[in-house]
């Protein structure tokens, strides 16, 4: 039997995988990919709750739709920014974005 716990654990695992990617990767685009993973993990969590807990309105699914929407918008914009950055610095390495350094 699938239980909510299964889904929560899956969601947590996927989230942490994505988190590792965000923290460890150098290429900004790859960081974006990892962020997508995290967003999906969240979605899994939401859908899970919608299925197990919310039997009337499936609010979880509605929210998940919105998450996907926003994720799409965000990816588009983020890539636009990265392109801009690439043009001026010829690199999308996050290491080089250290203007806030002491």
């Amino acid at each position, binding site marked *: 039997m699938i239980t909510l716990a299964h889904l929560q654990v899956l969601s947590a695992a996927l989230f942490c995988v994505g988190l590792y990617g965000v923290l460890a990767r150098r290429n900004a685009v790859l960081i974006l990919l990892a962020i997508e993973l995290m967003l999906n993990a969240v979605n899994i969590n939401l859908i899970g709750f919608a299925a197990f807990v919310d039997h009337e309105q499936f609010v979880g699914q509605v929210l998940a739709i919105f998450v996907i929407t926003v994720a799409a918008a965000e990816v588009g914009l983020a890539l636009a920014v990265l392109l801009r950055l690439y043009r001026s610095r010829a690199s999308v390495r996050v290491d080089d974005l*250290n203007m806030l350094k*002491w």
Partner: protein
Amino acid sequence: MEWAWLAPALNFAAFGLIVLGGRRLPGQGAFLAILAIAGAFGVFWYALADFLGRGTGTYAFSVTWFKAGNVDVPWGMVLDPLALVMLGLVSFIALVIQVYSLGYMAGEERFGWYFAVHALFAGAMLAVVLADNLLLLYVAWELVGLGSYLLIGFWYERRSAAEAAKKAFVTTRLGDVGLLIGILLLFKLTGTFQLSGVFAQARELSTGVLTAATLLIFLGAMGKSAQFPLHVWLPDAMEGPTPVSALIHAATMVAAGVYLVARAFPLFELAPATLVVVALVGLVTAGIGATLALVMTDLKRVLAYSTVSNLGLMMLALGAGSIAAAIFHLVAHAFSKALLFLGAGSVMHGAERTDVREMGGLRLRMPLTAFSFAVGALSLAGFPPLSGFFSKDEVLLAVLGKGGVVFPAILVVLLGIVFLSALYLARALLLTFWGELKEENRHAHEAAGVMAVPMALLAVGAAAVGFLALRVGSLSPGFGAFLEGEGHAFRINPALTLASVAAALGGFALGYAVYQRHLFSPQRLAQRYSFLHRLLVNKYYVDHAYQWGIDRVVLAFSRGVALFDRLVVNDGGVNGTADTVRVSGLRLRYLQSGLVYNYALGIVVGVVAVALFWWLVIPRVL
């Protein structure tokens, strides 16, 4: 009687006025000081008349000054025979000397300031004398010390004067600390500063505590009255102008210590151990003063050590239990010593010399000065019928009357001191005024009128005051009775009187033989007893002992404290704190790598840490 407070108040007012506006007034405002002290003198006569009319007793009046908690500190006066005598003495001598100063300090640039401090001093001294509570007395006491400091160091451009003033202040400070502790001790035990209150409760206190308190108070008296070993400041205080030496260091301030013990006598009576200490200290001081006066070459220093010696006598009288003898000697000594100092001042003014070895035969050029000086010297040596004779006699009587084992021994030493006093006074007198008039002194001239009149007045006083001791029918009850009641009238013991006069005559004769007739040579004596001579010339090495103490103890301690201050407080505390901040900033700034992923990692780690803390630590702690 209630107007007695005017005496100090007028003088303080004069001080204030001269300080504020003296420059613009004629004579830089000196006349204000003289007016004030004359006013005080007038108050004395008024009070005296009142006293004689109403009969002797104590009159007091006070007004609340401030309240602190449930302690009520008053500002008040008590006027009893003792205070009255002091009032008269201080105001008269101060008046006379201020007039003398008009001549002596003429042409001085800070003329006005001189008189201002004189007024301050007079006001403070009168406040000490009239105070009815210990706190007020202490405040005025300190002001007296301040006045002395300012006047000793009047010519502060001279290094030696500044040092002498400092020495005086610091040495008396040692005594003042004792006084303060004593006052606070009494306050703690009796709950009041009022003298009347303290005396009333004194009987209930234990002897040990009383002994401690009185010893502490005596410590204060030792400082101001130059008792051994706190006597070292008095000779150095001669750096001040001579009228200052006459007033403060002969007649008034140094008498404050004697007055203090007299005033607190009800307490001292209950602590016989302290009285023995007082007497012994007085005796030692008298001996030291007399022996050192013999070898000093500076005229003023001879007189300074003479003062030390006589102050010792006064303390000895107090230790022997007779306030009357002590105060009477105080009065006689005040007149005589002030007179001697004014004479010395006249010599300095006229011949511009202070070293007795360079003087001689000055009576030919300044006869009035010589005569006055002679009167003072003879009085102090104890020649009848001058005042010094009467007062010394009473001191001897008091010591004799004490009986026991200690005091008769003291009596013998006392007679020796009388002998020595006559000797050194003869030396001073003869070396200065008799003998050959040296070439370089031919230009010496007599003092001007404004200086001569005060000297004459003091000479009359020195001569006549002695007779106050005696009963004169129903007009005057005699000094002793005036002060202490009927049982203490002066008496004469013929044998003792004879002995003291003989000692005085003997001393004087020896002086005459050595210094006028040159029968013995002091120089050869000095060579034969060189150890003794050196001991005396170095003032018994007391100053050296003090210096050693300061160098080894005080300065060493302060070096340690300075080290602590530099290392711990400054380097550690102040600089250390700043450096810590700076260094930690230097290290911590690396946290600002500018790289967002570092910050993100920080967030994650933080979340995990908080979760762990929340789950693992909080349940255990709470």
